[in-house]
């Protein structure tokens, strides 16, 4: 049976995915790097995983349940290319003024990626901190005092025509863990594979010849 923090982690993922409204994708922890072209525009990615836990001794008893202050880390990844009115700039009939205006309105990829990640955090924050999500769709009292504590943005990374940007936020909450003890592993049927040949006397194997 899963511990409470695992149930909360899965529930956070589920709530984010249900309320993403096409703005982002939700995944579990992915240790391997993401390709920039996989997180472009609305394919930006949100990953949720359990980061750390504190078990204050004053909040529990020897037989449990024990108070568990959980911290979940939510990673966000977005990528954007430089965007602009390419058609006007490439149009041989465009006037110099029109070309200059189109160039002036050009949006650099790092700025767009930055804007995208800010917008993404906005969505995630609104979902996590919404009053109707304070239980993460779990029974009332299962999770308490959820709070988005921190937001941190990393340096942009150039990947061909895309700029990839990652950020993360920490979500803290409290729950209660039941201590059920180690349930062990139930053994299956035991198959004895010892070869037992009644006529095979060690040291006396050989070819029997007729008398």
């Amino acid at each position, binding site marked *: 049976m899963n511990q409470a923090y695992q149930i909360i982690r899965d529930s956070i993922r589920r709530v984010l995915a249900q309320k993403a409204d096409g703005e982002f994708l939700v995944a579990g922890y992915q240790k391997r*790097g993401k390709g920039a072209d996989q997180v472009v525009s609305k394919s930006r990615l949100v990953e949720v995983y359990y980061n750390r836990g504190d078990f204050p001794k004053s909040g529990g008893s020897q037989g449990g349940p024990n108070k568990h202050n959980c911290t979940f880390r939510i990673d966000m990844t977005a990528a954007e290319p430089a965007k602009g009115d390419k058609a006007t700039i490439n149009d041989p009939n465009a006037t110099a003024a029109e070309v200059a205006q189109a*160039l002036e309105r050009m949006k650099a990829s790092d700025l767009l990626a930055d804007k995208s990640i800010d917008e993404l955090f906005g969505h995630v924050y609104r979902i996590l901190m919404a009053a109707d999500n304070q239980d993460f769709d779990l029974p009332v009292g299962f999770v308490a005092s959820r709070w988005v504590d921190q937001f941190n943005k990393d340096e942009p990374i150039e990947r061909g025509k895309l700029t990839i940007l990652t950020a993360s936020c920490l979500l803290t909450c409290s729950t209660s863990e039941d201590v059920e003890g180690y349930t062990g592993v139930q053994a299956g049927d035991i198959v004895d594979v010892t070869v037992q040949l009644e006529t095979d006397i060690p040291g006396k194997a050989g070819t029997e010849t007729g008398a």
Partner: protein
Amino acid sequence: MNLRVQAEADLFDTLEDSDGFGLPVELINPDTGAIQTKSANDPTLDLSGQILYDTLVVDPQSGLEMVIHKPVVTLRRSSLDVIPEAGKGWGVRIPETPDPTANKTLHYVERAPEDGKAIGFIRLYLTEVVQE
């Protein structure tokens, strides 16, 4: 001839010569919208430069070196009507592949140019543009 002057003149052979590494480049001035397609040194020649299509970078996640498609154009400063400045979004059209007759694609100068003023060239770091 002064060695410095000679070195600058040699940039034609190293950067611009179409029989060597030179590939046609078009520079679009963000202030005026003017498009430079011919060399200021010799208006009968196309504006040309050396283009490296791929760049070697270090992946911050793994620490490994990797090749990314990020063109870098090196141009002879004396061939330019206006020298691109940092902070201004110049447009640059370069051939899609290292073939002078290939279709040209629009790129944008996002990063500050590397200005080799004393040596006589300027290096532009390009990002391909997507239609908005």
